[in-house]
């Protein structure tokens, strides 16, 4: 049976790890390496690392940095941030990442997805969509939530149907960093609209939030703030979800 995944998300900007709320008020909290090592020691299901500065400042992607991270991990690692062409995508995978995350580049050239997947295979591509609710409808934003692309989420999903990719990471800007719960309505609507796996992102505040997200159609849950700022851990999440009957990968049976 396929297991639900719990995925810690790390945002990197200007030399270190940042945490924000609604994609704003970014606080630099520590550097990335200690968390990578701890998550690896904890044998998490997967890790997502997003280099925010690449997109905002059109910074070139640092392949040495990616290798340095990959060196420390025995579990899958997704990297994103400023990827706009297939050479970068190829080099990132060659440097040790297992999947690449595309976001802002899609609004200028949606076909980049197929260009890259022809080379790397569709399954290595994660489409990251950040949305805000405006007048009860969801709209897509790029550049770390700063640019309104003026496209309705479902129109965007429709456009995406011509492209070959692996899964979607769906983030609610309104909920991000609030620890107030995922946007369950968003997950439910998108899940019934498309048939690719969805990673829910933005708003996890408790293990129960993660359970609900999975119940509402997510295949995996991503979380940043709660794992960094509170005593909640991926293992704790697994223990809780297992009790609730969700199929979860081993690694939670430890006592504490």
């Amino acid at each position, binding site marked *: 049976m396929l297991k639900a995944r719990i995925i810690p998300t790390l945002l990197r900007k*200007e*030399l*270190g790890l940042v945490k924000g709320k609604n994609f704003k008020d970014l*606080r*630099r*909290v*520590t*550097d990335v*390496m*200690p*968390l990578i*090592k*701890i*998550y690896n*020691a*904890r*044998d998490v299901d997967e890790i997502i690392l997003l280099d925010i500065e690449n997109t905002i400042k059109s910074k070139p992607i*640092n392949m*040495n*940095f990616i290798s*340095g991270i990959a060196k420390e991990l025995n579990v899958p690692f997704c990297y994103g941030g400023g990827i706009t062409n297939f050479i970068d995508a190829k080099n990132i995978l060659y440097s040790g990442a297992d999947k690449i995350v595309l976001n802002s580049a899609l609004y200028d050239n949606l076909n980049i997805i197929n260009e890259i997947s022809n080379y790397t295979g569709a399954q290595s591509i994660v489409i990251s969509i950040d949305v805000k609710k405006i007048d009860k409808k969801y709209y897509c934003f790029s550049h770390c939530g700063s640019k309104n692309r003026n496209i309705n989420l479902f129109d965007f999903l429709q456009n995406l149907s011509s492209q070959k990719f692996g899964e979607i990471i769906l983030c609610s800007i309104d909920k991000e960093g609030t620890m107030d719960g995922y946007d369950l309505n968003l997950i439910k609507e998108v899940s019934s609209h498309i048939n690719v796996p969805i990673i829910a992102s933005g708003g996890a505040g408790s293990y129960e939030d993660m359970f609900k997200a999975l119940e509402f159609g997510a295949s995996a849950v991503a979380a940043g703030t709660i*794992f*960094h*700022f*509170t*005593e909640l*851990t991926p*293992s704790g999440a697994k223990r809780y979800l297992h009790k609730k009957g969700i199929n979860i990968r081993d690694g939670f049976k*430890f*006592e*504490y």
Partner: protein
Amino acid sequence: MIIRCKRCVATNSRPEQVLDKDGICNACHSFVKKKLINWKEKKELFIKEIEEAKKNKTKDNWDCIIPSSGGKDSTAQAFIAKEYGLNPLIVTATTCDLSDIGKKNIENLKKSFDTIEISPQKKIRSRLNKISLETLGDISWPEHVAIFTQPIQIASKLDIKLILYGEQPQFEYGGPVRSNSNVMNREWMEEFGGFLGLRVSDLINHYDFKREELLPYIFPDEKLINEKKIKAIFLGFYMDWNNEKNFSLSKSKGFESFKSSIEGGNVSYEKIDNYQHGIHDYFKFLKYGFSRSTDQASWMIRQNIITREEGVKLVKENDGKYPLSYLGKKLFDILKEIDVTIDEFNEICDKFTNKEIFKCNQAGELIKEDDGKLILLDDGF
């Protein structure tokens, strides 16, 4: 890229540090805001806390706990408590590699105050130092945890109602200040305690420790703490916390500073309780491009002890030096106690070095000066 505050010399690379559009850091802003605080009002709030604690106090018990490491701040905290009519119990969570001068200053406090000294067994603590060095690039993780957990454990076990910590870091250095920023609790500790994500549960589940070996590092059940009405607060929230003033006060009460200049620092009365400080502060340089000299020069500039120009000079001279020794103890000896060789140490250093801010050769390797010092691409000056 490293950018320095235009007023002090703090860098934008420091966690929680933010430079505004005029290039002034949040710590400098905080310092200015402190002058506008109604300290009289704050003093009254503090007195209320004391009264509450005394009201709930059990018979024949101390009024409060002062967490101490043997440094100047804890000495000052103890005597300030006394000034307010409190009968404190000093809880010394000894540092991981207690220095001779640190020991002397702990003994000095013992002259005037009842003291409990807790020393986690060296065998376990050294393993923790080694793991936290290798995994987090922070040798001092056990200390970061113990300074919170041990005083609170004692408070819980002895039912002492008040714990007085010193500086409130968000006030002093920057970071979100919230309505409950006067209180130190589990929530605060998780967010601001500097644990870099490593938890006791990780040590038990993934690093082969037994729970009974980690007792000094376990935070007591918060429900119990609340039921007993035990509260930990920061003195820095209620009074104008000042390094110079604290040093003056503690010096007058017998606190001694180190007799020579301290490797990598500007003053000889701070960070003298632990031989591992040199390594701890060096890793700040590797990760963020600044170290103790920057920190010290920054508050010295804010408190008008030196000018910015003098601060810049001190940083250029002292910041980021490879820690060949600290307080006279050689790096080799400090590392030997935690079973790490110099080669292993250097490998760990490289792993945590942010290569984007230092000079590297064509092959991507760090360029080091003769004394092992790394060269910043841009020191921000």
